[in-house]
């Protein structure tokens, strides 16, 4: 069974803080993704990575950066958290080729006050 884990289920941070969200997958998948989910907007892609040290911007990369130093780990960084980054953050992974199916982690509910 593929497992994608995220470092925290709930996180509360203050405006201006640097925030790290960690994601780890155990199935040796090449591709990893960070999404945010907001009511009425669905899932929106922030960044994705198709290999170690590689990254590509998604639809809403502003205010975020990512790091992929190891194949199994993909980190999302909020350099200076703002209240409009309060959201549910979902990490996903998938193997290259195949059915394009993504495996999601349980999500991190981030609140920025």
């Amino acid at each position, binding site marked *: 069974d593929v497992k*994608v884990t995220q470092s925290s*289920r709930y996180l509360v941070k203050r405006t201006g803080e640097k925030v790290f969200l960690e994601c780890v997958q155990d199935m040796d998948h090449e*591709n990893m*993704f960070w*999404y945010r989910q907001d009511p*009425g*907007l*669905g*899932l*929106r*892609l922030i960044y*994705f990575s*198709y290999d170690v040290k590689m990254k*590509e911007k*998604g639809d809403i990369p502003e205010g975020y950066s990512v790091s992929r130093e190891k194949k199994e780990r993909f980190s999302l960084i909020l350099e200076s958290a703002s209240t409009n980054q309060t959201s549910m953050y*979902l990490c*996903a992974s*998938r193997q*290259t*080729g195949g*059915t*394009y*199916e*993504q*495996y*999601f*982690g*349980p*999500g991190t509910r981030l609140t920025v006050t």
Partner: protein
Amino acid sequence: DQQVKQNSPSLSVQEGRISILNCDYTNSMFDYFLWYKKYPAEGPTFLISISSIKDKNEDGRFTVFLNKSAKHLSLHIVPSQPGDSAVYFCAASDHGNQFYFGTGTSLTVIP
């Protein structure tokens, strides 16, 4: 601009009846479509998918239909069960790198 749209935010169906969830897309370059199911406090889980070279794919109680000319896909659940109550997202991809998700439809199956 939303490239994948689910125009019905919610749907209620009686147990045993058919549930039909709809999804429209705008980009004719999309070549693969997926449906995910999401329970509260959990990440989405993959349900069923379809390639653009097909117009139907079936897996047990779940069938996805694709109408490329109308840029429309639908998910049929027959018969609906209370455990199917969840939020359903459709997603589309152009060659598997970037995925575009709809806004979700919350399905309630009434016992």
